[in-house]
């Protein structure tokens, strides 16, 4: 037996393992100190009520803010569905029929911050905002009795969809372009139109990438603050991030705010688990 070779090989592998650990240690330490530790502190705070351990903050959150939690899940899911439908349709079309100018136009919202989107939508879509003013000029609506439904779920969904559609388009198009062109050529040879190519080829072959896109977009919707703050309806259901802000600023009740924060973590946890599971299966 070549003991030297074994020993040298063993030392080499240990050295590589140590080097690998040294490389990943700083980012892991960063994640632990900047995320895991604050998260644990947040959970700890959420279980405190008047200085003692209690789940009262959670029961209060569910009873008073339960409607808002459902509202958050609803607007996020609806916005996600619209984003995916639009990005897959338009992304598929632009993949099959290249149009750089249209592609650029659709990607413009990427460069616009959420807070600007919120303010722009607030004034553009307002009952007596720019859109309704233009529509009243051509007699579509009566400006003295304009439609008044924009603040709340409708406005939030429109704003979030418009903003994140371009991000989804970027991701979806890059995965569509990785599909082997020979499949699409073969499909066209057999008479498949654009719709058929998108539905039966592009989407099935890029399902995991679309899934990753969905997880990222949904998380961004669950954590959004500026758009939901500006387009929300103060008298109706609110996004959970607005409730957290109000609890901290106006009630100065940090344990309750932390309880709401933990609930929002749990809402995002589902998609995160799916994402990690898929990544580990791929690995």
């Amino acid at each position, binding site marked *: 037996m070549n003991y030297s070779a074994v020993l040298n090989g063993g030392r080499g592998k240990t050295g590589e393992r140590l*080097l690998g650990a040294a490389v990943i*240690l700083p*980012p892991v330490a960063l994640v632990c100190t900047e995320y895991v530790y604050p998260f644990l502190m947040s959970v700890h705070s959420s279980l405190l009520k008047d200085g003692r351990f209690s789940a009262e903050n959670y029961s209060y959150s569910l009873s*008073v803010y339960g409607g808002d939690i459902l509202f958050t899940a609803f607007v996020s899911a609806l916005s996600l569905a619209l984003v995916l439908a639009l990005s897959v349709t338009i992304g598929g079309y632009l993949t099959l029929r290249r149009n750089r100018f249209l592609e650029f136009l659709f990607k413009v919202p990427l460069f616009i911050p959420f807070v600007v989107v919120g303010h722009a939508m607030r004034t553009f879509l307002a009952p007596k905002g720019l859109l309704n003013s233009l529509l009243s000029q051509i007699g579509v609506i009566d400006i003295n009795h304009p439609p008044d439904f924009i603040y709340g779920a409708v406005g939030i969904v429109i704003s979030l969809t418009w903003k994140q559609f371009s991000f989804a388009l970027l991701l979806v198009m890059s995965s569509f372009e990785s599909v082997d062109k020979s499949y699409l050529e073969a499909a066209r040879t057999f008479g498949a139109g654009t719709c058929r190519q998108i539905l039966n080829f592009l989407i099935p072959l890029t399902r995991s990438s679309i899934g990753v896109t969905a997880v990222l977009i949904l998380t961004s919707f669950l954590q959004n603050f500026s758009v939901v703050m*500006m387009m929300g309806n*103060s008298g109706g259901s609110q996004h959970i991030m*607005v409730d957290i802000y109000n609890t901290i600023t106006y009630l100065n009740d940090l344990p309750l705010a932390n309880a709401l924060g933990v609930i929002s973590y749990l809402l995002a946890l589902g998609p995160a688990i799916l994402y990690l599971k898929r990544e580990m299966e791929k690995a």
Partner: protein
Amino acid sequence: MKKLLCALLAGSMLLSLAACSNAPSEASSAAAPAQNSSAGAPSQEEQKPVTLNFATGGDTNMSEFFNNEISPAFHEKYPNITVKVTATGAGDDGSRNIYTKWKAQKDAGKSEWDIDAGCVNQSVMKDLIDNGLIEKYVPDISNQKYVTTESSKFALGTDVEGYVVPLFTSQIVLGYNSKTVQTPPKSYDELESWIKANPKKFGYNGVTGGMSGVGFVAGWLYNKTKNYDTLVKGPYSADKTADWGKILKDLKSLPVTYTQGNAGTLDLLNRGEIDIGPVWVDMLLLWKSDGRMSPDVKMILPEPGMPGQPMYLVVGSGAQKDAAEKFCDFLADPAVQAKYVVGKYNWYPGIDSNAVFQESSQETKDLLFKEVTADELSKKALALPIDEYSKAMQKIYTETK
């Protein structure tokens, strides 16, 4: 080569992590102005250069006020004192940042603090006094005879006499579109009837997003409960809030439009989407002068009144006391109040208003008191509830569906 590269990468990551952990603490604090070498010890000699570190809560107009108007004027009077202004943010949070900074430095045993004086709102006064963070400096200043208003004595139930010079008083009123509302409601009861007769034409922001809505709801409670004195002076008693659930439920059942905050209400008034809404007087006048508000929007102060709130000038216990007191004294001067507080920024004076208005121009007085007279203000400018009742109001309003 690969291993060497990995080793270098690991090393540089470790170094950058160590560097991040040694970042100056000011990077994580919203209220920390830069250190100044001359701020080490309180100045004992009049001509020794001093940098006074001043922090202000409130919106951007507050930092503009101190940076653009007050600091240069103060430096002209006291050439050896330079004022460095830091904005700590709007709302209760901004004032709480100042409290947090002072508390941290006191707990750390520091004798000289980073912030010498501050401009804070009422909500933080109890904590500042209870923790021994501010000086009782008003008896020592030359303009103390003008510091006579009710708000200079009490802040949401806390005795603040001697600790504060109110910089200004801002007042909530009802803004209304004079073109569509020929006869604005003169009381909360008339307003309630008007709202029912004109659905969705009254707008406010609830109890979140802006103090104009909070003040409106507080005024609603004062009108319905007739318990104003108890709610603003205390003591707190939970049984006084027993009927608030029904009162606020009735309020929430009215056909109103909910806005996104102070600016949201003003926006909707300007666009004609609502005809009446609670607004801050100074914001309305500022928007009008900026051309952002229709000149048809006017003000009315309904019976029994609406709250307003002052912003307070306070001096930290670890401050450069002499310079800080001079600064607050400067702002307690009726001539300074007339020129800057009232004249340029359209706030109501924080000190004796008679003394201030003697120094004010007729144009300024016309602008401020044309629609809501000084006499009306003296009778109907109310205070916000004490902290416990204020939090109870927010909680019950939120819980009421």
